[in-house]
């Protein structure tokens, strides 16, 4: 009973942090986008906005809900948002959620599969390096890895387009599907290969190296010696014990790195003109499509903040050693506060 109560309090606390963070994020995004110079009317009315007389302008501003002080505008936006009404996109002249829904699937596919693939390969690579610690294979992988992690995403994308699309005509260089092939799964997969390779390659080594170092620390522990004395081979110890022991750390690294991979996905989407929410955020920031931008920033915030909270919960609860350490650390901080 007591345990359940504790859990409820924990969930309530995390929920509170979550909502306060999202609220603060929405205020920051709202004020930042509106302070930015530029005419949002242009994105709605196009060139017509420049020829409007004062009266028409005022009417248009009122229609788009851009009159009143910043606070008034935010309150109006917030009231709508609670009811699930996020307004109309200035550029597409449709409900924001409809436009985003069409694009979200593309990004989820590209980013989601890329994310899982990155971590799956990073784990394998990390294990491989840790098993061969110090010998030529490990040294070689570390060298190659460091080089790949220095290549900017956009340039890697360009080089891949140059090789696979321009020179050998093997794969398409932009879009999410061929002309008139929206339903063809094969076409979608072909369009996804290059962006996916960039996402995986540009993040792979960073995480593989983290995992390699965690496993190498794990190898130094005494249970490894005992398992070996009981007749297990190196590989068996690694797979049965070491890998299992770093799993909590691995999952929490995954959770907090959502932001990092998401950012990579955005850049890759822009280079490959892939119709996802990355290109959409870029467009809406550039053309002052306020309503669109707000929803996109909040979606991103929800994903990233949820990831952070999950990471925290995992490291606090699954791995009890961390929790104790965290408590001691907190206690120290509290003690130093009092002095």
């Amino acid at each position, binding site marked *: 009973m007591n345990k359940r109560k504790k859990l409820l309090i924990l969930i309530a606390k995390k929920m509170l942090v979550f909502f306060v*963070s999202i609220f*603060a*994020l929405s205020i*920051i*995004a709202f004020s*930042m*986008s509106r*302070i*930015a*110079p*530029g005419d949002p009317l242009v994105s709605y009315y196009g060139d017509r906005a420049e020829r409007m007389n004062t009266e028409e302008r005022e009417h248009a501003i009122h229609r788009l809900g851009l009159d009143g002080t910043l606070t008034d505008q935010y309150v109006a936006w917030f009231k709508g948002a609670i009811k699930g009404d996020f307004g109309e996109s200035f550029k597409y002249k449709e409900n924001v959620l409809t436009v985003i829904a069409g694009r979200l699937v593309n990004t989820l596919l590209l980013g989601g599969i890329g994310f899982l693939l990155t971590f799956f390969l990073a784990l394998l690579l990390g294990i491989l390096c840790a098993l061969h610690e110090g010998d030529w294979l490990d040294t070689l992988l570390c060298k190659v890895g*460091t*080089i790949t*992690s*220095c*290549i*900017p*995403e*956009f*340039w890697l994308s*360009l*080089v891949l*387009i*140059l090789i696979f*699309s*321009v*020179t050998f005509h093997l794969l398409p*260089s932009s879009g999410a599907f061929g002309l008139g092939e929206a339903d063809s799964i094969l076409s979608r997969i072909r369009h996804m290969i290059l962006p996916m390779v960039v996402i995986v390659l540009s993040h792979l080594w960073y995480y593989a190296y983290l995992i390699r170092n965690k496993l190498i620390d794990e190898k130094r522990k005494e249970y490894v010696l005992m398992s070996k004395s009981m007749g297990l081979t190196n590989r068996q110890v690694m797979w049965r014990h070491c890998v299992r022991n770093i799993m909590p750390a691995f999952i929490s690294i995954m959770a907090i790195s959502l*932001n990092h991979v*998401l*950012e990579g996905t*955005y*850049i890759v989407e*822009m280079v490959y003109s892939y119709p996802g929410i990355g290109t959409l*955020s*870029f467009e809406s*920031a*550039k053309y*002052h499509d306020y309503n669109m931008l707000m929803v996109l*920033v909040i979606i*991103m*915030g929800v994903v*990233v*903040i949820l990831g*952070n909270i999950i990471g925290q919960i995992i490291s606090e609860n699954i791995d009890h050693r961390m929790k104790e350490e965290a408590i001691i650390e907190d206690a120290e*901080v509290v003690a*130093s*506060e009092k*002095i």
Partner: protein
Amino acid sequence: MKRFKGKPLVSAIILGLIILGCVFAEVIMNHDPVYMDLANFDKAPGKEFFFGTDNLGRDIYSMIWYGGRCSLMIGFLATLISTTIAVVYGTLSGISGMLVDDIMMRFTEILLSIPGILLIIFVQAMIGQQNILAISIIIGVTSWMSIAKMVRTEVKLIRTQEYVLVSKQMGAGFFHVLGKHYFPNFISSIMFMIVMNVRSAIVAESTLSFLGLGLPIEVISWGSMLSLSEKALISNAWWVILIPGVFLVITLMCITNIGNYIRERMNKGESNM
């Protein structure tokens, strides 16, 4: 030779050569980097144009050295800005009471949760200018958060030390304590992050310029040279894409190697204690 063992000597030499080449660009250039020679556009690398020409007829060999100045300058300037903000913000957060400290750290976490490139686009829209100083400021004010967190942790550890208290008792102001006591103590632990910040600033500049949000094509930098690559893809002018990119990647690698060396040296120091 023993003295240089384990030190990133090769990286340091290559980086030094690239920096020297960029500083003394006028000496090694064999063409005017901004001159558009319309008779010789999209020429492949050869005797006259070592690295070929782009589709505006500019000599890439000369542009590399001349444009490297911009890229490196933005890298250093942006890092200077972000480090200054990080040091002041982190120290303030570290010496503040629990509530203020908590709010300040939550704020950095929220900023960290917005993907960097989008944050940069926001600030870019607010400043609205496309020159070296503006781009450095944009990159600087969007990349101080992780250093600030580190500074705050370090300051929290030393702020109750006797010498800090004594210094404050004797009437030292915020910046005096920061410069004389906090900074010398945390500089070694943030040095690695500062070096890596130079690297990410150079990447950010090139990405921004490539997307058409950074420096315009007339202002030559490695990023703005690459912004012509879409046209180069059509005409299959591989040298326009590959050569500036290779210079960019080599520079980034040298910086990374030096950064890693600093980190390892720091870790060694700690474990000896």
